[in-house]
């Protein structure tokens, strides 16, 4: 013990580090219990179920089918179609959210009076619960009383009311729009957090050098915002890939499966068709794709300044 006080700081002796380790696990125990109990164990069960032909929640001895469910899944055209729709949803959502989100963030950061009022307006859609947002847009798109029809009709753009959500392709695009309305402010606020961390001296120096607005944006803002943009892109990709709530509340995957993204199709397979085995295989496919996205994300935050990892 005497050597400790003389030679090494107390954190580095092995006795203290053992005490610290034990103490750390003790502090973490409740979190580990709650999170991994409700996640890792069920995840293991999902893997298990995906290897059996489970047809009911009460089935006592389902037949083992090995990778049969995976083969069935991968040879099903509907699974590939729903993956394609998910990809479309993800890519189009991301393009809209990031482009508009960046514009909104720049505007939120610009010098103006009553900035708090503008920020207040933009915060509201983000705070709206997803299902409330979905129900609202379902009303806006409604064929009989929807505001979209009323506006376009009164402007003379359309002469008959249009059932907006009854055509698959159009329904998908309109659901994306409804989703982007709520999530763009989120992206904007995340990018705003990045913008406010750019030192203002950089802009002042650039202004002294006589750089115009666009040049300053290209030379300072955009490069320094790249880490924030890449994190938000990966996180939003994961969230968009998981999309379920808004689809359920707006279209239930319809019309003609036009908005049946992979999460929704998995839910349908498991809980409507009672094919829990294939449903679990599909769930594992989603996990695999998201795990890949996740690894990209971890690499990104490790290279950014967040020092915990």
């Amino acid at each position, binding site marked *: 013990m005497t050597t400790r006080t003389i030679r090494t700081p107390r954190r580095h002796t092995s006795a203290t580090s053992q005490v610290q380790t034990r103490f*750390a696990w003790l502090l973490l125990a409740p*979190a580990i219990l709650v999170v991994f109990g409700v996640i890792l164990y069920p995840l293991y069960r999902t893997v298990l179920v995906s290897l059996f032909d489970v047809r009911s929640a009460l089935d006592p001895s389902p037949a083992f089918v090995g990778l049969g469910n995976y083969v069935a899944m991968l040879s099903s055209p509907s699974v590939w179609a729903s993956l394609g729709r998910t990809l479309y949803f993800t890519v189009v959502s991301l393009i809209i959210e990031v482009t508009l989100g960046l514009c909104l963030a720049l*505007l939120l950061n610009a010098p103006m009076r009553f900035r708090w009022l503008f920020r207040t307006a933009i915060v509201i859609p983000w705070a709206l619960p997803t299902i409330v947002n979905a129900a609202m847009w379902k009303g806006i798109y409604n064929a009989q009383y929807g505001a979209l029809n*009323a506006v376009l009709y009164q402007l003379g753009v359309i002469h008959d009311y249009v059932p907006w959500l009854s055509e698959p392709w159009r329904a998908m695009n309109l659901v994306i729009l409804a989703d982007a309305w709520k999530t763009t402010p989120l992206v904007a606020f995340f990018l705003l957090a990045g913008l406010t961390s750019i030192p203002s001296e950089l802009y002042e120096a650039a202004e002294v050098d006589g750089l115009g607005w666009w040049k300053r944006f290209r030379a300072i803002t955009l490069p320094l915002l790249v880490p924030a943009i890449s994190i938000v892109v990966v996180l939003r990709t994961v969230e968009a890939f998981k999309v379920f709530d808004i689809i359920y509340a707006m279209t239930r995957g319809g019309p003609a499966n036009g908005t049946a993204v992979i999460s929704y199709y998995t839910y349908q397979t498991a809980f409507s068709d009672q094919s829990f085995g294939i449903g679990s295989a599909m769930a594992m496919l989603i996990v695999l794709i998201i795990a890949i996205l996740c690894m990209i994300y971890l690499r990104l935050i490790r290279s950014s300044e967040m020092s*915990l990892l």
Partner: protein
Amino acid sequence: MTRRKRTQLAVEITAAVVGIVYLLPMLWSVIASVTPASALLEQPLRWIPSQLDFGRYIAILTPGGVGETGAGFLEAMGNSLFVAAITVTIALVVSIFGAYAFARLKFAGRRITLALFLSTYMLPQIALLIPLYFILNQLSLLDSRWGLILVDLALVVPFTLWILSNYFLTVPEELEDAARVDGCTRMGALWRVVLPSARPGIVTAIMFAFFLAWDEFLYALIFTSTYASKTLPVAIAEFSGRYTTDFGLVAAGGLVAALPPVLIALAFQRNIVSGMSAGAIKG
């Protein structure tokens, strides 16, 4: 008028237009919720109703509804409040301890454990839905608010743990060392020094945790079946399927359900931006 002033004015006008246009969909919902049902179906639609009808708010806020209309809404609101309040409280306590370990203690497996927690909040709920349904069924926790709290905790804790860890890191270690020299235990220093200094982080964690719990839909949809445990998102989804002829009722329910998170977001705007720089980002 100088050039700078003119630019500022242009920015202000743009911001005003963008802000108003952005909120138009919500404005219409507010109007629709107090427009008589028959007036909503008129064609062409009159945007400003000639008379106001607050009947839907009365219907959803009356126990049992008015003539069955709006029944279940109050129960769902009670369930949402109950589930959110308890989930947030437990998540906060659990993650204050955990975050302290991540931010202050050096131990083997720290990085991998943190990475594991972080990756769980990327995990799709749908991947756990099937076994959780079986498990809750075995535990007789289907259609129970406690069952919902249990599964919601697994969504919320990784998130609050991550936010708080980042905030605890910003509290200077010297402050804590000084308290411990004065005779505080580690837990004493956490309570007296770290927590008060990390107050904005705690407010942020509570806010995001509440949003997550209040917004949660998929688990509530599958694991609840009666108004003994159905939450507001499930009730709103049902409303929007059931009252297809009266959008005003759906709008009224939606606006009441949106009120708590919107008010909280408005009150703690500052914490949103700082929370997002601490890694809090969730749709």
